[in-house]
């Protein structure tokens, strides 16, 4: 079962965007291809994950290479890309490696932006689509449910997705490092640059209140203030506002600093030691660098925010190492479970077979005892049940043990031969 599991595809690691964007297919097309592959019997189970960074086929097939070729020939055909063009970009993982790949992808360890949260949803969507097409069998089902569980654990147990990796979110994160909760912190937005507005919006979403907006053009200040549910303040009266607010975002096109150290120092006393966080997104800078030296005042310009983002990415990388170890452990556990799963059909059909015999024999015996009272019938049932349970015990234990040791194939064959079984699932093809 494990040996027939495979994943084949291309991703941002192997294929350029020009190819990936060509292969991005809509849902209807995916549904068609998935159903077709399952229908013609190339794959026993199949699911296709298609995002802007990867196109991957997860499946169970006797000949994974064939399934891979058919799938990608069909996908490429939509946009006129021949299989020879795609072939060198494709990778294939089988068995345990496929399990590991699935876990890593769902946990966002294989993503372009390490730890980004979207991929898990995309995998879930792909799984749901395959389920709707009825191309999911026991292997993909247990693989994906486990992949979702692992992804969740990676997210909660490591910090691989925790630190901001965009400039505007880095600003929010810094504000939290300075103030703790952001609810009720006041914000002053100076200028109407796009990035400044974006950062202000993120802050407002975190519950900052009230918001003040200052702009050289009064009308622009008013309209932006309306947008952010804030108050417009005259550009000339920045200082009194500076004494009150907690966070200042500047993004004006002024050629030289509009907030100077001497001015900020003057309002510090009125601030009673409350920290002040200035986010200067303007280039050239709107805040004099010397302001950062003042006690309790923090100034971050665009470069500073970028270096925080870089540090956060490095931090995610560190956390990813722990996540990889976690995934590794889960893969081992899952492989063992999958092997267990392989012996289950044999055990089930062995039990069914004996049960069949038992029922027939009990019926025969009762036919010969027409006057049997309920107590006798019960005793017969119990006797026969006990008998088959005793007989079943040995083979069942043997099968489970052999699966753990990895040589269950031989035993499945042996026991099937011995009892004349035709187990469903397992080595056979799914209906």
């Amino acid at each position: 079962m494990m040996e027939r599991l495979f994943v084949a595809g291309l991703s941002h690691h192997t294929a350029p965007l020009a190819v990936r964007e060509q292969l991005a297919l809509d849902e209807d097309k995916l549904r068609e291809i998935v159903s077709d592959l399952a229908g013609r019997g190339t794959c026993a189970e199949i699911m296709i994950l298609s995002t802007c960074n990867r196109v991957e086929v997860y499946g169970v097939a006797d000949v994974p290479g064939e399934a891979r070729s058919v799938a990608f020939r069909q996908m490429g055909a939509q946009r006129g890309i021949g299989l020879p063009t795609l072939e060198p970009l494709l990778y294939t993982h089988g068995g345990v490696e496929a399990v590991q790949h699935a876990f890593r992808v769902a946990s966002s360890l294989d993503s372009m932006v390490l730890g980004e949260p979207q991929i898990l949803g995309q995998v879930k969507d792909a799984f749901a689509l395959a389920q709707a097409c009825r191309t999911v069998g026991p292997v993909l089902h247990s693989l994906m449910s486990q992949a979702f569980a692992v992804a969740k654990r990676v997210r909660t147990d490591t910090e691989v997705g925790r630190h901001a990796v965009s400039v505007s979110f880095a600003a929010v994160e810094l504000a939290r490092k300075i103030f703790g909760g952001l609810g009720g912190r006041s914000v002053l937005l100076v200028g109407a640059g796009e990035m400044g507005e974006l950062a202000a919006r993120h802050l407002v979403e975190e519950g900052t209140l009230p918001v003040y907006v200052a702009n050289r053009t009064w009308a622009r200040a008013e309209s932006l203030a309306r947008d952010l549910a804030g108050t417009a303040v005259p550009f000339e009266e920045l200082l009194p506002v500076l004494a009150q607010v907690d966070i200042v975002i500047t993004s004006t096109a002024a050629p030289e600093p509009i907030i100077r150290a001497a001015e900020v120092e003057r309002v510090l006393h009125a601030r009673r030691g409350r920290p002040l966080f200035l986010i200067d997104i303007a280039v050239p800078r709107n805040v004099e660098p010397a302001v950062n030296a003042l006690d309790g005042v923090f100034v971050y310009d665009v470069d500073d925010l970028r270096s925080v983002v870089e540090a956060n990415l490095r931090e995610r990388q560190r956390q990813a190492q722990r996540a990889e170890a976690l995934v590794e452990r889960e893969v081992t556990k899952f492989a063992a479970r999958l092997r267990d799963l392989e012996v289950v059909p044999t055990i089930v059909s062995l039990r069914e077979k004996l049960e069949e015999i038992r029922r027939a024999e009990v019926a025969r015996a009762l036919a010969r005892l027409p006057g049997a009272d309920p107590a006798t019938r019960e005793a017969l049932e119990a006797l026969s049940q006990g008998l088959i349970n005793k007989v079943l015990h040995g083979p069942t234990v043997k099968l489970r043990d052999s699966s753990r040791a990895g040589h269950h194939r031989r035993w499945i064959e042996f026991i099937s031969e011995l009892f004349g079984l035709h187990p469903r699932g397992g080595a056979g093809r799914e209906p």
Partner: protein
Amino acid sequence: MNAVVFDVALTAYILAAVAALSSLIWRRDDLGRAARVLTLAGWICHTAAVALRGVELGRPPVLTLAEVVSVVIWVAVLVDLVVERRYGITAFGAFLLPVVLALGLGLPTGLRDLALEPQASSAWILVHVALVLVGLAALVLNFGSALMYVLQERQLKAKRPGVFYYRMPSLQTLDRLTLVTLTVAFPFLTVGLGLGVVRAGRAWGRDLVLDPLALFSIVMWLVYAATLSGRVVGRWGGRRAAYFAIVGFCVLLATLGAGVIFQGRHGS
């Protein structure tokens, strides 16, 4: 017996400190949990050790400097446990436990034999010691949070996120903690030391100014008084307040050191 139990407690504190620091540096939550369990275990042993000593000696175990320091640690660790649980400041132990250890490891050596004059063990002295004790415990925490503030502030100013940035609470949380611990410590310290001065002034007369522990205590009180008034009246920023808290704690350590090295009237 109490010495053995105390050593067990101290060992648990050492392990807890190592675990807490490792959890901070390598950002491992599981080590943080281990640190909290070890801290709690250490504290329970410590409680037993203090109680046993009291029972063995048949008197409150706060009459020698060593006993006082031990109880200061006991209170500080208790507050650490509460702070970590209530406020979720898991990095606190990493800063507090080393301080606790620095104090605790001194106990078996120099501090042990220092005792108050037997005739001085009156109710007055007990109140004096108890008040100063609570004050000192709060100041240990004050130092821990001030140190964390300074480190976090430096990292934020330098704009290079590192260990502290990723693991420590926000600046305002630390600032509030520093202020609260100082505000709690100061009245206890003031009344406790005041009682001591009044009482010793009567008993020792002019010898009071020759007692190093008393002298250093007064210097320490002045530093903390300056810090508190700076914050309340002068509206100091967090950084200056934190630096003063650290200076204050250095004087506190010097005070204890002076108590050990120079045997003034406090010594026997």
